[in-house]
């Protein structure tokens, strides 16, 4: 599904990703953990095509298509989805209108018809319920004035609506209390399927109690320095990052 090889990326003249390799197969859930500032968000942004980063080496392919050849919207239409660590507020842009535009753009690129108003409403209500979000959210501007938890749930709600092939969740757990965390995790788990892969970026092991990963990777200083099964997350929780990161540096 996703194949990243030798990826290097810089911001300004600072190299942040320094030769990153990652293979994600269909239906797999990979957790990427690592200390603050290790490059997790940078990796997510580079994959989804945010401006301001320069890819200096390596490749990233989604089902064989070179992502770096595509605009952000084309990547999304191909089935890539990023749940932002810091969802952006869009004053004046109605949430429902936004979702409709996004869904229709993606459907159109797949050669599907636009959803009619009734089916669209039905789909939205169903997904809102899963995430315990209120209908009134649809009438509000995207993320504008949302609480931290609402913003994160809104990201997963969008993911549920857009049904991506590969979803990257960037610290979706940060700032959530335990109830909200459970809701978000339920939402994510409901979307797990043999065709859908996920990369769950997190700083803490806590989220992984609810979203069980198939693989856990440790990202430090722009490289994946250790990979393992879910037990690696527990080990990290216990011992912190120091032992791997320092061990690697030594």
């Amino acid at each position, binding site marked *: 599904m996703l194949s990243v090889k030798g990826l290097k990326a810089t911001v300004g003249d600072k190299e942040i990703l320094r030769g990153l390799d990652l293979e994600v197969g269909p239906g797999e859930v990979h957790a990427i953990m690592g200390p603050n500032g290790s490059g997790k968000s940078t990796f997510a942004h580079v994959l*989804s*095509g*945010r*401006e*301001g980063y320069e890819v200096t080496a390596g490749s990233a392919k989604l089902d064989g298509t070179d992502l770096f050849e595509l*605009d*952000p*919207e084309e*990547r*999304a*239409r191909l089935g890539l*989805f*990023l749940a*932002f660590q810091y*969802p*952006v507020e*869009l*004053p*004046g*842009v109605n949430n429902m*209108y*936004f979702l409709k*535009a*996004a*869904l229709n*753009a*993606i459907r159109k*690129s797949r050669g599907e018809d636009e959803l009619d108003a009734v089916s669209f409403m039905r789909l939205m209500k169903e997904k809102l319920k899963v995430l315990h979000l209120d209908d009134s959210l649809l009438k509000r*501007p*995207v993320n504008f004035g949302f609480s931290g938890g609402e913003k994160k749930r809104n990201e997963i709600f*969008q993911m549920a609506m*857009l049904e991506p092939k590969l979803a990257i969740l960037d610290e979706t757990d940060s700032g959530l209390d335990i109830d909200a965390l459970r809701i978000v995790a339920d939402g994510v788990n409901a979307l797990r399927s043999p065709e859908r892969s996920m990369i769950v970026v997190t700083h803490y092991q806590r989220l992984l109690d609810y979203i069980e990963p198939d693989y856990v990777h440790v990202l430090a200083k722009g490289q994946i320095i250790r990979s393992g099964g879910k037990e690696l997350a527990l080990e990290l929780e216990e011992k912190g990052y120091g032992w791997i990161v320092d061990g690697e540096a030594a």
Partner: protein
Amino acid sequence: MSAAANSSRQQTEAAEAFAGWLQGLSGGAAVDATSSGTAQDWLAAERQQAAERVRAQAVPTGKSESWRYTGLRSLIDQGFVQVDESLTALTPDDIEEILVPGLDAHRAVLVNGRYSEALSDLGTLPRGVRVGSLQRMIESDPDALQGVLTRIAGEGSHLFASLNTAAMQDGLVLLLERGALLERPIEVIHLSVGMEEPRVAQPRHLISLGDGAQAQVIERYVSLGDALYCTNSVLELSLGRDALLKHARVQQESPNAFHITGLYLSQDANSHYAGVNIGLGGTWARTDLVTRFSGEHAECDLQGLYLAGDKQLIDYHMDVRHGLPNCSSRERFKGILYGKGRAVFDGLVYVARDAQKTDAAMSNRNLILSANAEVDTKPQLEIYADDVKCSHGTTVGQIEPEMLFYLRSRGISASLARRMLCLGFAGEIIEALGPEALRDYVTEQVGERLERAPLD
């Protein structure tokens, strides 16, 4: 000859050309007015004085502040001549294309500044409401106009308003008696149709609400085709005590039109005026909004949205004078500039020494989509009272890259994303327009312009 002398000679020539042109436009009409009857001596006198003011008033040059941004040369160069005949050939079918779909309103239509009975569709008006042609009313019931017409825009009116007073022939009159209630909105369509030679129309409109009267007025300035013409209109608005007027104005004229509007508002105690100005069209569009209070606790709310692209200058001037205590005024204008578009926001709020407890807020925010677009924004507060609440602020910014990225990361194209963000920015002003059909229509008009806008 030195460059300075050369440029000063050019200035003089321009001023002379302009003065000559102005006299051509005001002179003939003034004669017309004096010959048209005897019952309106007061009006003939007003027009005579206005014609004299035009002759005497210094021609605005690049140096005179309020005209600094709007060079007049391009206007003079068109050689506009006064429209004299009325156009009767249009049928309701011809104006179908310029209507707002689904807008339920009493409709008055003016063509090139003249009231058209044939195109208007007023329906049944409630008791105490009169709508019709200014010319008719000057002929049939001039007393109803005395003390209002020319009085609000009289003193302190600028050159073009004086010119209008001298030359006016027709326009719209809307009179609400004390306590009258206009529940359905009244839509006033100012339609311009191109003529063989470039013409200037100088309509004069009057809206007067008696004490406690309430109305919602939607004015639309529209054209058939890409006609080249000039409109120099004046609207006098009088709100009695406790009167309430919601006033939407949508200027969507041809890309070749020259549009000059002076709106003079007089508000008595406790009256409430809520105006929303949408400026989309024209190559040269100047609007002056002038407010005076004649009683306390009146509220004046002026909002606006303007878009300007290539070959467009949109120019708003506001002059709100608080001479009495306890009134409030708010100006909130937003602009979107693209291509080589230019806009001016020049707002003055004056608070006299006695105008204690004035509450005035002025804001102007601009979104600039290209490096070549330009806005001159100049909010000014002149405050001589010491117990007031006044604020002002302006911003000139660009679309936030992370907002754009957020939308694109959801599969939305860059151009649609940009449009969504611009409409989001404009949304709160469009919301204030009132009827849903009108809001949808304006949203669509704005969206279409943004869709055609060059990306840098």
